[in-house]
């Protein structure tokens, strides 16, 4: 980034109970963006061109994961931003919020094992024809950490068919070789779905954490290209 050039501004919304907000802010800065922390009570996105809804346990996961945050004042601005084509990335709890506000289809159930799962998983990239995914290649396998208890994506059969036929699946859980298999699915999510995009392709939700993998020192750089795509879309 040359001196004087304006960096792309990316809002990271902080809810009470968010715990991946600092990683998200750091990841945006690591790829050359300007990270802007935005408190959930705020009503505007401070001229940011993209938004991250970070992971954590907003409102202590009371009622349902993401359900209370979905009604925070900032979510009206996030919805407006999304409806105008602005880029939104929801990670983990942020993905749960996107489902709760209806920007993405389906809902999260408790993991099949009933356990909180905190470990690395492999993801297969299903689409790259969107701004938010264009830094990846189809079939590419990413290794990213998950850390959640409610990541078991569910929808009724009609919605599942729509999601599949409409190309809404961004990522599926797979093995190290890129094979989507039941035993590579950590939480029981239907169709091995780990990440979804909306019809316009500007809203992406995913359970794995790309923001935790932007430096070799922190275990790898497999999340870096995704964060860069978001910054470039801002």
């Amino acid at each position, binding site marked *: 980034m040359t001196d004087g050039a304006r960096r792309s501004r990316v809002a990271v919304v902080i809810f009470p109970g968010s715990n991946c907000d600092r990683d998200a802010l750091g990841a945006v800065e690591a790829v050359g963006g300007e990270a802007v922390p935005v408190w959930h009570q705020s009503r505007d996105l401070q001229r940011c061109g993209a938004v991250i809804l970070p992971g954590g346990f907003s409102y202590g996961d009371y009622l349902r994961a993401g359900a209370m945050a979905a009604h925070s004042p900032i979510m009206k601005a996030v919805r407006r931003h999304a409806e105008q084509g602005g880029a939104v990335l929801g990670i983990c709890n942020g993905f749960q919020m996107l489902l709760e506000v209806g920007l993405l289809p389906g809902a999260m159930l*408790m*993991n099949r*094992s009933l356990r909180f799962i905190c470990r690395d998983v492999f993801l297969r990239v299903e689409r790259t024809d969107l701004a938010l995914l264009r830094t990846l290649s189809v079939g590419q396998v990413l290794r990213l950490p998950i850390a959640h208890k409610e990541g078991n994506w569910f929808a009724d059969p009609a919605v599942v068919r729509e999601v599949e036929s409409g190309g809404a699946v961004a990522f599926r859980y797979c093995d190290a070789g890129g094979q989507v298999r039941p035993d590579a699915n950590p939480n029981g999510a239907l169709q091995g779905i780990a990440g979804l995009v909306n019809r316009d392709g500007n809203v992406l939700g995913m359970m794995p954490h790309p923001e935790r993998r932007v430096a070799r020192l922190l275990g790898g750089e497999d999340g870096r290209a995704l964060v860069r795509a978001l910054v470039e879309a801002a």
Partner: protein
Amino acid sequence: MQVEVRVKLKDQVLDPQGEAIRRVLCNLGYEEVGQVRVGKLMLLEVAGEDPELLRARVEEAARELLANPVIEDFEVRLP
């Protein structure tokens, strides 16, 4: 008036928590227990006299926040 909102997973949604409880009950000797489903019971203290109006308001609140229609059904009970 105290209004009950019962939220439960839809019948077609698997309930691994209920299944885990059933297995433990079975181990404890309660072999007659078939299926277990876990739900939520919310007790709302609500101001108002007209039961129909009250029910309509609480049902609206349930649709907007208390239950997620993708995975859950709810039932509102007035005293």
